[in-house]
């Protein structure tokens, strides 16, 4: 019997005898014979060492970005990962527990989520944040559907900046159709930034205007101007954030009147992991809390008056409301929210500022040195403000350049032409506090050799 199965053959015989059965097959007599099989056409079980080496061989067939100077971003970022984070995540009290529906024995998970919610409200500068969503792309979807609900389904157009991560926009398109929402896309101006006037003219009566800052091209948007333009139309203003570390240095959209700030918080201690699991987040103003998707933890007291936490406003959710729920979501990314909470509490408030300053300084240094190299390399938007990412163009298409620079030992970024858009064909390059001065030197050397 396999070690992950609790009963041995003797045990099975004993239990069958207690049940008055001769064979375990009798327990399956309600399954019609025509759908049954004798065995699956696959290998039998294997010992731990065999499985380890099989999985390890697949792992070793990948190039780990830890091993070479890496400037990959475009929605997934490499930041410091304090050893404390994985140590806490490895505690079975956290990773093997269920959704905290029984608050008396789940105060650990519940308090972590309450701390996560508080941290996210402080970073987004909004009043309420939920316990997390699947990822940044689905957070955008939920924000659009949320806006549609808040405006009682009377406005069926969503205005979306083209410079929101193109993958997020594709995911939105998958959902928008069945929700009866038309998506109108607004391209950026020649400087890669959105023009508030064009946003204002994009649609008659949109339910929301969604923008990303810093945007897909790394450029910081005019959030106060965009919030004003949106409010004039009566729509909800939505800010998407894919690089959450930017919130250490840039004000959250709530300060400028954004109704929703949502996106991806993978930067806060969650492994790149080939794209998941990551950590969607969603914050909004308190007046809309009953339309907010996802789980929410609230503070209460127990019978003796001690502080205690529990899931709350679950009347919005599917297990109570069924067909009338605000969303069909039945999960959050609990363990990833724990990772972000441990990460943020390790880094600290001032630490997050210093981390973001470090990203900014390294990015500015690399941009300065690229300008110094000059032709054939150039910044696509040299005068636009960026946080830790920018679009680089050079002697070839993005995919060609990425490949040639990889041959020079540098993972230079993500080809911008992976997705259609009104931007030049180049490389989206991200720089974080993990990129040392030597990494920047290696990047510059590689650029000089590829020309």
């Amino acid at each position, binding site marked *: 019997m396999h070690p992950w199965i609790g009963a041995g053959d003797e045990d099975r015989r004993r239990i069958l005898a207690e049940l008055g059965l001769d064979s375990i097959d009798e327990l399956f007599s309600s399954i019609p014979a025509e759908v049954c099989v004798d065995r699956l056409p696959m290998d039998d079980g294997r010992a731990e060492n065999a499985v380890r080496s099989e999985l390890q061989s697949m792992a070793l067939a990948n190039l780990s970005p830890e091993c070479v100077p890496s400037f990959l971003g475009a929605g997934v970022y490499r930041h410091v990962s304090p050893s404390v984070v994985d140590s806490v995540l490895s505690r079975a009290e956290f990773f093997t527990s269920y959704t905290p529906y029984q608050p008396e024995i789940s105060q650990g998970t519940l308090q972590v989520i309450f701390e996560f919610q508080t941290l996210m409200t402080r970073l987004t500068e909004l009043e309420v944040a939920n316990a997390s969503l699947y990822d940044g792309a689905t957070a955008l979807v939920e924000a659009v559907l949320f806006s549609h609900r808040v405006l009682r389904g009377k406005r069926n157009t969503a205005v979306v900046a083209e410079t929101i991560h193109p993958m997020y926009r594709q995911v939105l398109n998958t959902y928008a159709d069945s929700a009866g929402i038309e998506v109108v896309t607004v391209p950026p101006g020649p400087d890669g930034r959105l023009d508030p006037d064009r946003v204002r003219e994009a649609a008659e009566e949109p339910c929301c205007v969604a923008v990303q800052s810093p945007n897909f091209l790394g450029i910081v948007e005019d959030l106060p101007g965009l919030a004003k333009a949106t409010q004039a139309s009566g729509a909800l203003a939505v800010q998407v954030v894919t690089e959450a570390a930017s919130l250490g240095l840039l004000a959250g959209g709530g300060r400028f009147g954004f109704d929703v700030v949502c996106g991806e918080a993978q930067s806060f201690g969650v492994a790149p992991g080939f794209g998941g699991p990551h950590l969607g987040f969603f914050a909004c103003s308190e007046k809309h809390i009953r339309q907010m998707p996802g789980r929410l933890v609230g503070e209460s007291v127990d019978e003796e008056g001690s502080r205690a936490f529990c899931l709350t406003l679950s009347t919005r959710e599917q297990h109570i*409301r069924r067909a009338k729920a605000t969303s069909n979501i039945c999960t959050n990314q609990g363990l990833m929210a724990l990772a972000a909470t441990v990460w943020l509490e390790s880094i600290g408030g001032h630490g997050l*500022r210093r981390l973001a300053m470090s990203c900014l300084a390294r990015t500015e240094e690399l941009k300065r040195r690229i300008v110094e190299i000059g032709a054939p390399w150039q910044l696509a938007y040299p005068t636009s403000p960026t946080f830790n990412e920018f679009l680089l163009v050079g002697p070839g298409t993005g995919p060609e350049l990425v490949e040639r620079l990889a041959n020079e030992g540098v993972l230079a970024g993500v080809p911008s032409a992976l997705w259609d858009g009104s931007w030049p064909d180049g490389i989206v390059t991200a720089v974080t506090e993990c990129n040392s001065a030597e990494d920047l030197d290696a990047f510059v050397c590689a650029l000089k050799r590829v020309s």
Partner: protein
Amino acid sequence: MKRRAIRSEPLFFERNPRRVQRQGYMLPALDVPEVEPTEVLPPELVREPDPDFPDISEMEVVQHFHRLSQLNYAVDEGLYPLGSCTMKYNPRLNEVTARYPGLAGIHPLQPESQVQGALRLIWELEEALKTITGMPGVTLQPAAGAHGELTGILMIRKALEARGDVRQVVLVPDSAHGTNPATAVFAGYRAVEIPSGHDGTVDLEALDRMMDETVAAVMLTVPNTLGLFEHRITEISKLVHDRGGFVYMDGANFNSFVGRALPGLMGADAMHINLHKTFSTPHGGGGPGAGPVTVSEALIPHLPVPRVTRDGDTFSLLWDDPKSIGPMRGFYGNFLILVRALTYIQSLGADGLRAMSDVAVLYANLVRHRLKGAYHLKYDAPSMHEVVFDDSVQTRHEVHNTDIAKRLLDYGFHPPTMSFPLIVHGALMIEPAESVDPEEVEAFCDAMLAIARECETDPNLVKSAPHDTPVKRVDEVRAARNLKVRWVPEESP
């Protein structure tokens, strides 16, 4: 010496009250010139002051989370018999493989040539799930079961549209999990309930009346939430297919018949598989899960993109396909959860997977056998992997299922599921799962029997439970009425 019991832990925000500079982590040294943010960024966008939360030392962080962890119940502590949720052992090998740097550290947008191992891993898990379900297509994208449901229903919608057939209704049995009707509505359909027959399975005559040209799909959980196998499943599928509909199978309970029967043979067009149930990936306090969807030939063209394709020994990603419903989320799925599931499947193999279901079903029947009599069984038919009692014997003493649940906490067990199925009033849905030892299952039964006696002899003891938990019964009504969903300092309004 008895360890100090941890009953509460201050919030992070209440730590370091003097807000002095401490450091929880040392950042890499700044080896480039510092930049004044307002010189390169619009000054009005720069955050002032710094993010407002405390800086604490590393040990303080570790102690904080250690103490919080002590307030949680977990699978490693004891039986976690949540029906339908399948709280089985989370193998430590899964945690090892999912942390290999070549898997955890790779970026999803690296050139394909640099991530051949990861693409192969996805392909291998796809093949394994196709074999295990007997279905010809699969997507690993969905992040959870409910997300899988939505993926499946959107594919069905797309397939109907492709043949110019617009339908409005999705039929869902009254015993279904709440996500089923919520999914149908989210996908733009009207959810209509099919009544259960007297034996707890779908009322075939009612289905026959309801299944017309307005019905896009029937969503069925097999076995259903009562732990009963839909024994007329092939008749149901034929009826639905003959009238142009699709069969969506909710695979939340797939763990009860792996290696014994194939959903593909049952006529399923789409079925999500909760990797965090059947295939042992951890629940993580509420996620992340993963909900791959296997599909029939009819739905293969509509699978989400990007998809992994294979040409000889080379794997690629297909990003565009006009027939696809499009991407359901970012990238390719909860990849590190997929790694854990593949680890589990390879470890158990064909023989182990079948034994897994055997023991899961055996344990549920043991619980049914031992508790029958003390607790009422509304549907007294052989159980699959779970058994649903109700509290109708105990309500005579004014004790309800929630009281029994809270009393179980005192006995050191997690309570069963109570929020559904809605067709059983006061439900106690019990699923032991196969990974615990039989003595643990028996100890749980003993605790349930002891509580049943207490309900007669000392009902107040049960109604005032729990008595031995970090906090006493929590006032959930107050939490909803007097909303406090973030910490605010005492002095502010």
